[in-house]
């Protein structure tokens, strides 16, 4: 009997395949991870995507350039302004039009506010993923203020349809700038509070430092961009590397991961880069408000968008990374092909590389630190 128990053919130990998702609290949407585990340790992980595929690119083949904007809104629903801005930049590049200064400044203010809002969700849900619930409610509370600003701006709180090719839909409402300044005054101390509660928490550091280290060259090879790559210490930010809009006029830093709590490029670094970026965004907004010129925001709106035949690849630094729109026009008012390069798509593809050998709990932490949005991955 004893020999039988020890015999491996009677008691088998083997890999277990665990399906995490599509319905799971921590996959940030309908992502499915097929995890091969040996006990708690993950030996292989395969992300399966496409559960939120809404045929964005197919829709674009039947819609005019202006009509695509609401669809780009819905791609990255946590940073809709960024998607609109990225798409509008690409179309404007295709149309080759000059924008009034005021539009550019308004767009920068709005985009940076959106960056704050998006990072707040990223930071809060990352806390939630490692089990801290209170930071999430705090960050959502602060994000609410940004959403209130956006509501005053265009009436919508999530899907704005505000930035259009050639301009913006409305000028700033009265008192908007004062309210924005008020928000920034309120917001700066909140970051310190968040740092006290979460960033420097011993358990949080234990859970995230040294976990899921993304070496810089691996990150670049996989096409990882945005805060996830900057967490590995790569100084790559399109606002500096390939400046668009009026970003050259502002003085701001690009926060990089330094491996303060562990190895360079670990989950904690990726998290902390986002926290620091919120401060930089606040800095940019203050400068933009100071420099904001007068003018008509609708001056450059084209009567109809009908670019000449040709292609364009527009790039934009969104909250999640490098958004690209590859637009092929054949001279009609409907694009022949719109391809969106989604940053979270590439960021997710690195997951299987950096998370093998870690435990199930760490997979959640690594996934949270990559800050994915499934609407954008699946399009």
């Amino acid at each position, binding site marked *: 009997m004893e020999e039988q128990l020890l015999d491996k053919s009677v008691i088998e130990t083997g890999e277990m395949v665990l399906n995490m998702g599509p319905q799971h*609290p*921590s996959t940030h949407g309908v992502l499915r991870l097929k995890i091969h585990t040996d006990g*708690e340790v993950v030996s292989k992980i395969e992300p399966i995507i496409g559960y939120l595929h809404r045929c964005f690119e197919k829709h674009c083949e039947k819609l005019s350039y202006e009509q695509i904007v609401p669809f780009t809104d819905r791609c990255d629903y946590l940073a809709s302004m960024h998607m609109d801005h990225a798409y509008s930049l690409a179309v404007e590049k295709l149309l080759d039009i000059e924008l009034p200064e005021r539009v550019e400044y308004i767009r920068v203010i709005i985009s940076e506010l959106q960056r704050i809002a998006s990072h707040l969700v990223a930071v809060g849900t990352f806390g939630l993923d*490692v*089990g801290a619930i209170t930071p999430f409610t705090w960050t959502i509370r602060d994000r609410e203020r940004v959403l209130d600003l956006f509501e005053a701006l265009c009436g919508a709180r999530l899907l704005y349809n505000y930035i259009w090719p050639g301009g913006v839909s409305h000028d700033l409402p009265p008192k908007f700038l004062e309210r924005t300044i008020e928000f920034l005054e309120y917001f700066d101390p909140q970051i310190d509070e968040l740092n006290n*509660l979460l960033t420097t928490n011993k*358990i*949080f550091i234990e*859970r995230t430092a040294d976990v899921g280290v993304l070496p810089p060259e691996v990150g670049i090879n996989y096409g990882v961009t945005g805060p996830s790559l900057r967490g590995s210490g790569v100084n790559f930010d399109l606002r500096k590397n390939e400046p668009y809009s009026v970003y050259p006029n502002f003085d701001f830093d690009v926060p990089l991961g330094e491996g303060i709590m562990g190895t360079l490029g670990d989950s904690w670094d990726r998290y902390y880069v986002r926290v620091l970026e919120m401060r930089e965004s606040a800095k940019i907004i203050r400068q933009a408000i100071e420099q904001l010129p007068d003018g008509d925001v609708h001056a450059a709106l084209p009567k109809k968008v009908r670019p000449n035949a040709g292609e364009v690849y527009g790039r934009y630094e969104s909250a999640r990374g490098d958004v690209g729109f590859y637009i092929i026009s054949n001279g009609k008012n409907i694009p022949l092909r719109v391809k969106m390069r989604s940053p979270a798509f590439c960021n997710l593809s690195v997951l299987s590389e950096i998370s093998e050998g870690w435990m199930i709990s760490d997979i*959640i932490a690594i996934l949270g630190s990559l800050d994915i949005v499934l609407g954008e991955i699946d399009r």
Partner: protein
Amino acid sequence: MTSIFDSLQITFSGLNLDLMIVLPAIALMGGTVIFLLMAVNALVAVYFERKVSAFMQDRLGPMEVGILGFKGGKRFWGGIGQTLADAIKLLVKEDILPNDADRVLMILAPFIIFTGAFLTFIGLPFAENLVISDFNIGVFYIVAMSSVGVIGIILAGWSSNNKWSLYGAMRAAAQIISYEIPIGLSLLLVVLVAGSLNFGDIVQWQADNRWFIFHSPFSFLAFFIFFISIVAETNRTPFDIPEAESELVAGWMTEYSGFRWALFFLSEYANMLIVSIVASTVFLGGWLSPLQMFNVLPEAWLFLDGPTLGLFWVFLKAIILIFVMMWFRWTFPRLRVDQLMYLCWKVFIPFGLANLFFISLWELLF
């Protein structure tokens, strides 16, 4: 020290009834009291937890549901009927058993967990002479009974036929059994000094000398080892890895719903109350008044020190400890499995053993 059981027996013995009738009657009465206590405790503790979490998170918590039209205050104590409504909802909810689950074990598991919590109350002192049955091995009995629950957890996780449940059950088994050891070591220290396993004697020792937490540096340390370990024992954040909502969906109770899930809930909060009362009895002087230590009260106020308010002091201390546990839950992230095990086996157990050794020396020297 007399117990409720003894005094009831004495009362009934005056009626000249058959012992075969008296004993079940007394047991039934005791059981009803315990059940009511558990139910009320869950209702109050859940409400308390919701309000505590709400205030920590800049929210208001439940504000709408009232009892018989009385909603409670506008600002703080609103929605006092919420947990009652939740309890009713859980009782009338559809009870789902998965097709491939082991039906017998899955039905049995919540009752085992509930029984574990239920039986523990028998030996738990709420005040002087206010204990269902007074054992001379009270501490041992409580430690033994509170470990019964882990069998139920393993059964629940295994019988659900769900991978998340299985993970949760395995984690729970490893965690709870591990953390029994530092708990045992800390309690052993107290038993060693007081020389008795009886709660009454332990509190009497504290009345004669001083509270255990202030007895020596080692018992001070032992209290913290004990307290952190009981947080782990009751599966609460930052040690809630068996449930680990963001990792394992709901851990070992993923497949449970309705009444059976309510039993888990009831047991969880009952366990919180049990361990808090044990901690306050063993380390914080039980039904002794904290004012006693300072001797500042004028003559007329001395009833505060006496046994009349014993129940109040025990519950006050327990509620403070429960509040601290909630405070933990709403501020800390969750530990990982290996970190949790590290904490237990490489920190608490060596410290617990060293503590035991040094307290023996301390007792010899002083």
